[in-house]
């Protein structure tokens, strides 16, 4: 393993640039970087694959993984430093920071964002570690399912810890708990003492300030004098242990009362039942973290609770909806149970109703305070929900359950704007032990098995739904919620579906690919590489997918569904959570745009960022060094002689050109190119029609005008003239094109070894206004996504990547890029409206089809 000392020694070995080094030397280092890059991404993908639930691993495995990965990332930084000594020292610091965070996580210390406040709109799935499950789950409803939630913000764990530290509360709490241990105190007294300490403590001034600012910002959205609800959201509350309902929510506080309500929520962390429960399950008091959610109070006409599955009789396959008039539905009614509706989950029809006498309700009085008032006489014995509302609520509950893959306990409110979900958490279902497993080994006798022992498990789980076969060009919006999607390729373009369907079956797909990662993120049952899936499952209607067992049954297999509910989700166990938390410091890519000023070593937040940064800079070093006057004595430099209006200089650093090329000749013809990826690109560039950008009737004169404008020297930086460069070897190409205002980079390694194959494509620029340019970016994005690239688009920048396809498939995609470069070079000029995107897309597909013929 490298030490930091080694790296620093490496840094001082050379200073400044790598001038004087030959392309061959640099290319050797570059190849090392590519290989490390590939190994690191492999390791990350393998660790992610394990999260699918199909592997058995323990903590030792996680430690081992981190150790090996970390060593490779160090080597990567070291190798880049050999290419461009001393240029990116900030990488070491970034690396050390990430490494130390990972060690902290491994040692069980909490790592979250170092901010007091996060707004609901900015909270992401993984922010559960910063704002608690309750806040994070709620925000996912909005961002992933489009369900209405109250507007609001979270006060983070970071704020909680600082509040405790500032007031020496950790020490005070520990002292009280020690007294409790020595039996000199009752739990009730101890709880009271701790709560008193919290309530009289001061909120740090910056936190007070941040809460005030956040409230002011919220007021701009929801109006002056808002009433708020302040809710608890504890760490780990909703996963392994059931702290549900142990903590306090404060409903109906005005903006000046938020700080006090916050303290009450924090104090409730130490109420007697919570203390007792934690002691029972062996949860340490310093493991506790409490965040709060500050939400607008929804002025609801009706409110209540949904259990998406009847917990006392799950087999009945019904859900329970309870409701009452007014705000905070059932909380108010110690006196009444409210109305109860039992709803069939399949048909969403009511199977039984209990309407109670509802004489009191809580409601907003004078628009500024909550009070309990008498219900209007004629409403007291009326059902508080209409049939339509019940159906909507049931549908919403099933969507939420499908998303979280677990029955849910949901709090809702109905106001003028419709249904608003206030909270959702997993519902604990108790079964009679061993009721289901007995018959499970013989399911095949009762249910027709459509597919058995085919494919690989990407994410375990049971999904029940109607088969929906999805073709390559099909509209994703037309896929019904809850479907079992069956498709040919596990293309990244399917990602938006993964939060709303019940299962995914593909005929071809990489278990370590992007879509597989997304399936695991949403715990979506998924099977890849199921040969013949489309023809077998087409027209089969309702099916049950058991991804762990690699089986698909005709119809609904209830036993499996219930068996799955009964199990504690393995993906919720400690090791899975630990690995997921560690991967958050490793896997996400936050540095996307290499042209952004943010693209700097110090902004690398994950190992993936570092890997990406190093790759980008290694490519850049290779290209720039030529212009910096690097010795090319051991490389052959030629100008490409062809009839395409693209002036290309080729630098061959080994085996990229046919031998012998006439040594004196300054030019080379396309026929003499041996580099596998450049050959494929050139075929695309030469594709008849690629440089003829008039696929539909367009204004030819304006096209010609734009063409000449772009090529005219007055718009060009003199330095960029003739800077179209391809650095090649037998299996590699790095093509950088600077055509006027268009910048394109293609970096590709291509051989018979699938594992090493990749294409990286970057495109941006244009001469027209931003709107047209981004239309073109959208066209390129859609075309590339259609051909299974992973694409990121920001404005007029497109970055696309694809890895690990076999040589013919890769060549096909390089051919596509060749077409795209030629075809779209001027297209922004013609992107006068959105329908043009489709016209041009069809033309490109047509050109690709022609290739196949």
């Amino acid at each position: 393993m490298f030490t930091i000392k080694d790296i620093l020694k490496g840094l001082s070995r050379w200073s400044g640039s790598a001038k004087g080094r030959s392309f061959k030397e640099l290319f050797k280092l570059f190849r090392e970087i590519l290989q490390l890059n590939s190994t690191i991404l492999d390791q990350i993908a393998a660790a992610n694959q394990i999260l699918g639930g199909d592997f058995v691993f323990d903590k030792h495995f996680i430690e081992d993984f981190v150790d090996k990965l970390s060593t490779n990332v160090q080597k990567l930084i070291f190798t880049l430093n050999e290419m461009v000594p001393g240029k990116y020292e900030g990488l070491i610091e970034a690396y050390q920071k990430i490494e130390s965070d990972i060690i902290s996580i491994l040692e069980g210390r909490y790592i979250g964002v170092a901010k007091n406040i996060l707004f609901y709109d900015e909270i992401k799935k993984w922010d559960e570690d910063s704002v608690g499950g309750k806040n994070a789950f709620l925000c996912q409803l909005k961002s992933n399912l489009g369900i209405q939630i109250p507007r609001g913000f979270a006060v983070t764990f970071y704020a909680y810890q600082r509040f405790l530290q500032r007031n020496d509360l950790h020490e005070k709490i520990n002292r009280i708990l020690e007294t409790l241990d020595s039996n000199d105190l009752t739990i009730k007294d101890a709880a009271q003492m701790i709560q008193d300490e919290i309530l009289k403590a001061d909120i740090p001034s910056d936190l007070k300030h941040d809460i005030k600012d956040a409230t002011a910002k919220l007021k701009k959205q929801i109006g002056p004098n808002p009433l708020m609800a302040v809710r608890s959201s504890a760490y780990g509350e909703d996963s392994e242990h059931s702290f549900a309902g142990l903590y306090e929510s404060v409903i109906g506080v005005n903006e000046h009362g938020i700080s006090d309500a916050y303290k009450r929520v924090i104090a409730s962390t130490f109420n007697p039942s919570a203390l007792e429960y934690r002691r029972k399950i062996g949860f340490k008091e310093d493991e506790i973290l409490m965040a709060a959610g500050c939400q607008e109070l929804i002025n609801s006409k009706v409110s209540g609770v949904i259990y998406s599955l009847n917990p006392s009789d799950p087999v009945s396959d019904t859900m329970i909806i309870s409701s009452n008039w007014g705000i905070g539905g059932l909380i108010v009614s110690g006196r009444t149970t409210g109305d109860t509706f039992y709803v069939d989950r399949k048909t969403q029809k009511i199977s039984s109703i209990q309407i109670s006498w509802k004489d009191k309700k809580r409601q907003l009085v004078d628009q500024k305070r909550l009070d309990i008032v008498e219900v209007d006489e004629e409403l007291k014995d009326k059902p508080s929900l209409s049939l339509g509302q019940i159906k909507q609520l049931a549908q919403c509950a099933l969507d939420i359950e499908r998303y979280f893959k677990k029955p849910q306990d949901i709090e809702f409110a109905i106001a003028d704007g419709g249904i608003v979900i206030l909270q959702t958490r997993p519902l604990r279902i108790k079964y009679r032990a061993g009721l289901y497993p007995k018959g499970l080994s013989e399911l095949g006798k009762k249910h027709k098995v459509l597919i058995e022992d085919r494919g690989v498990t990407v994410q375990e789980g049971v999904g029940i739904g109607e088969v929906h076969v999805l073709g390559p060009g099909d509209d994703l919006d037309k896929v019904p919620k809850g479907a079992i999607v069956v498709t040919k390729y596990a293309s990244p373009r399917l990602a938006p579906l993964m939060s709303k369907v019940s299962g995914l079956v593909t005929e071809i797909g990489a278990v370590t690919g992007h879509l597989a990662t997304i399936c695991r993120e949403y715990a979506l049952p998924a099977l890849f590489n199921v040969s013949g899936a489309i023809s077998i499952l087409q027209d089969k209607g309702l099916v049950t997918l058991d991804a762990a067992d690699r089986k698909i049954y005709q119809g609904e297999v209830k036993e499996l569904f219930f068996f799955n509910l009964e199990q504690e989700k393995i993906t919720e166990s400690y090791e899975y959570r630990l690995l997921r938390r560690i991967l958050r410091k490793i896997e996400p890519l936050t540095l996307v745009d290499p042209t952004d000023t943010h693209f700097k070593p110090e902004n690398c937040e994950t190992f993936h960022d570092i890997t990406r940064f190093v790759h980008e800079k290694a490519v850049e070093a290779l290209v720039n060094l030529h212009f910096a006057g690097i010795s090319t004595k051991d490389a052959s430099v030629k100008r490409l002689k062809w009839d395409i209006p693209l002036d290309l200089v080729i630098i061959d650093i080994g085996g990229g050109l046919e031998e012998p090329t006439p040594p004196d000749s300054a030019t080379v013809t396309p026929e003499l190119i041996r580099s596998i990826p450049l050959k494929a690109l050139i075929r695309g560039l030469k594709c008849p029609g690629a440089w003829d950008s008039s696929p539909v009737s367009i204004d030819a004169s304006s096209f010609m005008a734009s063409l000449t404008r772009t090529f005219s020297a007055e718009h060009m930086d003199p330095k960029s003239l003739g800077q179209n460069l391809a650095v090649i070897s037998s299996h590699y190409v790095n093509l950088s094109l600077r055509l006027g205002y268009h910048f394109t980079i293609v970096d590709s390694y291509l051989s018979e070894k699938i594992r090493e194959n990749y294409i990286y494509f970057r495109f941006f620029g244009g001469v027209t206004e931003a709107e047209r340019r981004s239309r073109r970016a959208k066209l390129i994005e859609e075309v590339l996504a259609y051909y299974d690239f992973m694409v990121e688009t920001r404005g007029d920048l497109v970055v696309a990547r694809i890895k690990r396809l076999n040589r013919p498939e890769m060549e096909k995609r390089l051919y596509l890029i060749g077409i795209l470069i030629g075809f779209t070079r001027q297209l922004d000029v013609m992107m006068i409206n959105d329908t043009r995107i489709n016209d041009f897309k069809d033309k490109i597909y047509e050109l690709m089809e022609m290739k196949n013929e």
Partner: protein
Amino acid sequence: MSEKNISILILDDEPIVAKRLQPALEKKGYQVESFTKSSQALERVREQKFDIVITDLKMEGISGMEFLEKVKNLWPETEVIVITGFATMETAKESFKKGVFDFLAKPFKLSEIIEIVKKAEERIKRKKAPE
């Protein structure tokens, strides 16, 4: 149904292993008990014969190697499957010498261990068949 009533004991000091294996094997119709402490597992084995024992090697207290030796002494018919995160050729060799049915390095796929359990089950049935 009765032909599937093979009993399995799982011993691993990392709770996640049993947590993962037990339901998966139960789903296949096996009777499964699991332990995280080797002393307790040993007590249980003394009371009752299990058809298959799945054990980790590296544990506090009685090591997996000792445990499997004791199991084999008590019940020579029991098929033992070793799972370990510290797999070396030596440990593999040693455990095979002690009559282990198969050896699996962590992390492994559920389908892999189920396959091995199935093979162990077949062998048990073959042995019983002539009677």
